[in-house]
């Protein structure tokens, strides 16, 4: 055993972050290169579609992870924001012929405004009660989407959403869409990482651990919870926007209770409070049903079993779990 090198306090105080950030940049570059390679290599439309959905689900999982994983505020109605984003752009671009480029800020803005209005009263709740509150909110949005047929097309859905276009540039091939979605994913990952590493990120985790203690050190818990809720809603709406222009069709079923639970599952399986966990959770939950088609009628049973197994053996989620396993394996090999 060698003695640990004495680091001066100041060195440690300033130094650790810059090391991390250099390492992070490399990860981002590797990630971007991987995305480009995959996008160029994969020609099969079905695979591309799957990859696009992984991207969309990653956005959703990431948005909820900020709220649930980091700030510790559970939301069982997150698909509502996904739906608001999708329907907002659908109605604006198809019914009112607004260019998608303008519909995007409108979709995100609408979700954020709704989050603000809903967040002020609901975020006073904690634990199970917050879960119930957001659950109710999700149901209300779902019902509005289904019943307000004159605007949303009702239960049968909304048809005729135009493809994404900005002037002469039209994004209608799967490959282009793939790049667009994954560029957004990378952007959001960078944004979230930066937030988490900042003083605000520390405060969010502090709220997760104990709101009282966080308040005692001077964190404005109410304001911060509301802010992260709004941010989270905006990211979910971005995913909704991308979804609507990918499928050209939206229906209320996509944004119901089960969708919200799926997002929660992605976060938990991937790993709470883990940015990359959102990516793994979203990938697993998107791909698993496809792989399991072979089991035909037993598909859902196997699906459930796999999720249960993951949770029993890797209770901290895939990312941490696999890292822990790797650590243990390395330690036993060292001896």
């Amino acid at each position, binding site marked *: 055993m060698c003695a640990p090198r004495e680091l001066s306090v*100041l060195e440690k105080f300033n130094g650790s972050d810059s090391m991390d950030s250099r390492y992070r940049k490399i990860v981002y570059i590797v990630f971007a290169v991987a995305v480009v390679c995959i996008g160029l290599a994969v020609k099969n439309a079905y695979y591309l579609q799957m990859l696009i959905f992984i991207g969309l689900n990653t956005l959703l999982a990431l948005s909820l992870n900020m709220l649930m994983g980091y700030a510790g505020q559970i939301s069982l109605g997150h698909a509502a924001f996904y739906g608001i984003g999708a329907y907002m752009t659908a109605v604006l671009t198809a019914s009112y012929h607004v260019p998608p480029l303008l519909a995007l800020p409108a979709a995100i803005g609408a979700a954020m405004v709704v989050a603000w209005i809903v967040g002020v009263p609901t975020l006073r709740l904690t634990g199970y009660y917050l879960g119930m509150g957001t659950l109710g909110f999700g149901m209300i949005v779902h019902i509005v989407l289904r019943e307000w047929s004159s605007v949303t097309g009702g239960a049968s859905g909304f048809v005729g959403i135009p493809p994404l276009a900005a002037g002469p540039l039209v994004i209608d091939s799967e490959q282009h869409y793939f790049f667009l979605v994954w560029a957004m994913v990378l952007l959001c990952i960078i944004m979230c990482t930066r937030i988490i590493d900042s003083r605000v990120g520390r405060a969010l985790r502090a709220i997760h651990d104990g709101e009282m203690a966080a308040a005692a050190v001077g964190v404005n818990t109410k304001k911060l919870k509301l802010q992260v809720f709004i941010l989270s809603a905006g990211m979910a709406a971005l995913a909704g926007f991308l979804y609507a222009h990918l499928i050209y069709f939206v229906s209320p079923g996509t944004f119901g209770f089960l969708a919200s639970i799926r997002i929660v599952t992605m976060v938990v399986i991937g790993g709470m409070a883990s940015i990359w966990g959102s990516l793994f959770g979203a990938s697993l939950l998107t791909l698993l049903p496809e792989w399991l088609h072979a089991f035909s009628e037993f598909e859902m049973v196997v699906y459930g079993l796999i999720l249960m197994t993951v949770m029993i053996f890797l209770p901290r989620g895939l990312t941490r779990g696999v890292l822990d396993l790797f650590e243990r394996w390395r330690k036993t090999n060292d001896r």
Partner: protein
Amino acid sequence: MLRIRNLKCYYGRIMAVKGVSLSVNQGEIICLIGANGSGKTTLLSAVCGLLPDWTGEINFMGRSLKNLDPPAVVRSGISLVPEGRLIFPPLSVLDNLKLGAYTRYKKRAVHEIGQDMETVTTLFPILKERFDQPAGTLSGGEQQMLAVGRALMARPKLLLLDEPSMGLAPMIVEKIMEVLEILRSKGLTIVLVEQNALAALAIADRGYVFETGTVVLQGGAGELLADKDVKRAYLGKDYGDFYDAG
């Protein structure tokens, strides 16, 4: 410095503090002693803005603290070391300390905060060794030191401590009390809430004795240590020592 007049605190309809008045002067260690449920913690919560439901007057350096939320109180120069420490267990020791300076980062005070980090780790060298560990893996004493360190990171003018000796070995308690004395010598004003009256009165300048929401006794720390009722109730002598024998 801190002046409280006729403070009444409510939990719903229950009055937990029933008209307390006290004053704290610059550079003093004031100790509040009293049994469970006598309203000491409630009083601290009211000062910190954690309990908004109170009437009366709390003035800190000439400013009323009425209607201030906790962040505003911290910014005005009051830091709390909460009961049971309430550190953030999964966060590293370093992050815990940085969180203590949360309200100051806005002012681009990164260098100053670094210096304060240095000061805190000089007071508690053990924290430096534990910088990257999750705070939850620290021993109870180390966690208490971290909680004090975290509160100091806000650069308070007034430090409130709620039962810092709770559940700690006498040696650690002594160490923490020593640090409080050092802090006083540097001009910090301290309010210390304690069940461990002996340890607290040993370093305090003055003290207030609480009983069911009111102050029943106040005076210099020496007088209180000598007081019969205090001895009986808080210093571990029972009635027998005083009454039966006589």
